[in-house]
């Protein structure tokens, strides 16, 4: 890319400077991280508009807003965009690339060029996917799960483009995963031990292991599926002797771990945010690490709980029930540890903290319905209903998306050098939290009482609750406005943040905001205690000035 460098910059190599670098094949992990973040948000708004179409259609019990085929295209695109183009790239690619090199004390990722390739696979894949809507026959119509034989009978071109797009995104994800593993294990600053890493590194290590182990399985499955579509092979076509349940096994072998690929990084980010704003050490560092590893192991052996109503043998149902339920134990440990981190802290009630606490509340709700869904007899009734829709939106939206917002509020000062406006941030939180719960809580009741998922028309007795849910969706759409205004306005005239506005101890705050190209001007700092906040018990903080604090401090 030949671009004249602005005169006020020292030309550094061939990399474009200024805003143009965000459109270049930049090798700087911070640039790539922000590229992921902005691209992710663009697709979030596209996916959100698609969700708007779904909720609009469902305000009435008959199919009257879009055609039935379009509706199925929209729900397929919504799922695919939100998972593969928004959540996975943002919690892994965006924050992973931005933060991991800081956390291990490196100047960049292990493979900067691979990193840029991984990012630049995403825009073409996304454009391909969205563009398939406009071709003859339209986009894929078989849901993000693409179960055969349905995916073999719907218009072929859209389905093949969908497969191609997901393959590109899966490739991007694998490249990213390899890069994170190499960076965390091999690029640590000398003297920094594994058990001294910030929790997000552990979360990304676990996530990347899942990515590298399971994504290739999805890739292989989708390639076989495309053979079935293009070359009329019979891997998954029962008319040719194929077996559709095999597809489901292979698909969920990736797609259940995909849930952890979406939530484990969010767990890591929350573990970074809470101690800073609670002014306390992260409670139970060691158990947090082991519970991440336990979730990784268990996450790989629970996939068939998506198939309890398919033809699965009884012993398999029993095994997957128990295995799935047990994921609640390490996950529970993490939540109790976060509660203990809050307990006795000095909580700043800012947007980052509020979104993190919103995450805890939403995710606990989604986790409880998740344990219920793991029980075969329970699942038999609600499988493929709006109960499941409600459940997984509590996990991926109430869980992960809330954390993405918390993270934007927390790291925006690092990205830009300016603080976000807190009043707009709290308004954003309030609207999002109310809208989200209004949208997805009623869906549990709808599912229990007979509304299946992925329908454009439904029993008229469900109309009122569906309208309530749509109002919630509208509130969620509105809630992004204060956020957008805040992010754009603060970039130019927000309060100057300084290098470390939160008095945080993790290494990304021990440099300028925004950080220089190679992260630190001098040697990378050695941070062996990333959560060393707080006053030891029995001692009194010198900064404590009031008598009341003296009493409280003395009592503990």
């Amino acid at each position: 890319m030949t671009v004249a460098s602005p005169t006020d910059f020292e030309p550094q190599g061939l990399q474009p400077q200024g805003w143009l670098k965000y459109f270049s094949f930049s090798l700087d992990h911070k640039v790539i991280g922000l590229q992921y973040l902005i691209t992710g948000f663009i697709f979030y708004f596209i996916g959100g508009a698609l969700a708007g179409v779904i909720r609009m259609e469902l305000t009435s019990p008959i199919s009257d807003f879009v055609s039935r085929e379009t509706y199925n295209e929209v729900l397929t695109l919504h799922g695919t965009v939100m998972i593969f183009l928004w959540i996975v790239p943002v919690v892994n690619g965006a924050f992973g690339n931005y933060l991991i090199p800081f956390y291990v004390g490196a100047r960049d990722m292990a493979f900067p060029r691979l990193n840029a390739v991984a990012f630049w696979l995403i825009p073409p894949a996304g454009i391909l996917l969205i563009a398939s809507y406009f071709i003859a026959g339209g986009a894929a119509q078989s849901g993000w799960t693409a179960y055969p034989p349905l995916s073999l009978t719907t218009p072929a071109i859209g389905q093949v483009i969908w497969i191609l797009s997901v393959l590109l995104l899966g490739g991007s994800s694998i490249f990213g995963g390899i890069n994170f593993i190499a960076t965390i294990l091999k690029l640590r600053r000398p003297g920094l031990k594994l058990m001294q890493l910030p929790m997000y590194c552990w979360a990304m290590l676990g996530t990347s292991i899942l990515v590298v182990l399971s994504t290739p399985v999805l890739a292989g499955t989708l390639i076989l599926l495309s053979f079935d579509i293009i070359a009329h092979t019979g891997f998954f076509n029962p008319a040719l002797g194929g077996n559709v349940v095999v597809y489901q096994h292979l698909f969920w072998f990736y797609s259940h771990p995909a849930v952890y690929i979406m939530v484990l990084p969010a767990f890591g980010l929350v573990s970074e945010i809470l101690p800073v704003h609670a002014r306390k050490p992260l409670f139970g560092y060691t158990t947090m690490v082991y519970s991440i590893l336990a979730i990784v192991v268990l996450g790989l052996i629970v996939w068939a709980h998506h198939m309890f109503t398919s033809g699965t043998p009884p012993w398999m149902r029993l095994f997957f029930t128990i295995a799935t339920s047990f994921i609640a134990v390490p996950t529970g440990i993490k939540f109790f540890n976060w509660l203990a981190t809050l307990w006795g802290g000095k909580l700043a009630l800012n947007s980052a903290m509020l979104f993190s606490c919103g995450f805890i509340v939403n995710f606990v709700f989604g986790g409880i319905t998740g344990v219920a869904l793991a029980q075969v007899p329970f699942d038999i009734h609600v499988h493929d209903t709006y109960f499941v829709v409600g459940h997984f939106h509590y996990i991926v939206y109430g869980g992960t998306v809330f954390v993405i917002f918390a993270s934007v509020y927390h790291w925006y000062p690092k990205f830009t050098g300016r603080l976000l406006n807190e009043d707009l941030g709290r308004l954003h939180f309030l609207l999002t939290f109310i809208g989200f719960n209004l949208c997805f809580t009623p869906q549990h009741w709808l599912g229990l009482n007979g509304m299946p998922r992925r329908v454009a028309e439904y029993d008229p007795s469900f109309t009122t609750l569906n309208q309530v849910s749509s109002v919630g969706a509208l509130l969620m759409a509105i809630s992004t406005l204060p956020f957008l205004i805040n992010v754009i306005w603060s970039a130019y005239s927000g309060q100057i943040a300084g290098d470390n506005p939160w008095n945080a101890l993790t290494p990304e705050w021990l440099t300028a905001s925004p950080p220089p190209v190679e992260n630190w001007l001098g040697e990378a700092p050695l941070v062996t205690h990333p959560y060393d906040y707080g006053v030891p018990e029995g001692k009194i903080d010198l900064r404590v000035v009031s008598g009341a604090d003296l009493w409280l401090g003395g009592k503990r």
Partner: protein
Amino acid sequence: MSIPSTLITLLLGMGLVLVGLWVGQNVQLLPIDASSNAPVYDSLFQVLFSIGTILFLGIVGLVLFSLVRFRRRPGDLADGVAIEGNLPLEIVWTAIPAIVVLFVGIYSYDIYERMGGMVALNDHSAMHHSADVMQASAVPSAGISEGSDPASEPRVWAGIGSNGSNEGSMPVEVTAMQFAFIFHYPDGNITSGELHVPVNRPVELRMKANDVIHAFWVPQFRLKQDIIPGQPTVLAFTATRAGSYPIVCAELCGPYHGGMRSTVVVHEEEAFNQWFETNAPPKPAPATVASASINPTA
């Protein structure tokens, strides 16, 4: 404040448990129950609902309490207490969820068995169904007096509810296609778009799909089973409450998936016999309920 905090915690915990139990008992979220396994299901739901309520209220309470009690006052620049962990505490909150989850798992296994889900209709080896396997495994449901040729179901996949005691159950063949369910009564040679069943008598649905995957769901029966092309599946149930209930396709099957609905009409015994006789083709008249119940099905 002179009340010790341990006592307050204890009282709060007891109150929480009582609220959870009350909610589980009294908040009715499910549609009415109309099959013999629905009450079994509902008791599992109550247990899960109670445990879930206790957990959720407890954790939300803790978050809200922390946010209020431990909020940073203006001008307070101090840090919190440097507590990095507490091993006994962590053991407690690892052990309790583990025990609860284990209990729930075993309990739901028991429920599943009572619903007839663990019946090994055909669970020797999983994934291949060649011709000889078809022959070998034809025992459970072969020899049924149905005229249709290859449908002497080769490899029957266990749906829920077929709990062995299906003596005298009424067989109904279900064909799912885009976008309808077709019900065929082999005993009376009746073909219907609605499912009519008598109350309090086991019904055995022998299901197959013609094109793509569908799912047979009756919310009031708490029953769902995917109908997968190439995999004949049996689902058994006993209706317990007369009335009309929706049959819903629960697996995305194409543009009209949302419209793929039917009705199951549960009749009293006599009304059902009447329906059966008026709809049966005149020729094989004596295909009555009596002969059907003698018929040695699975």
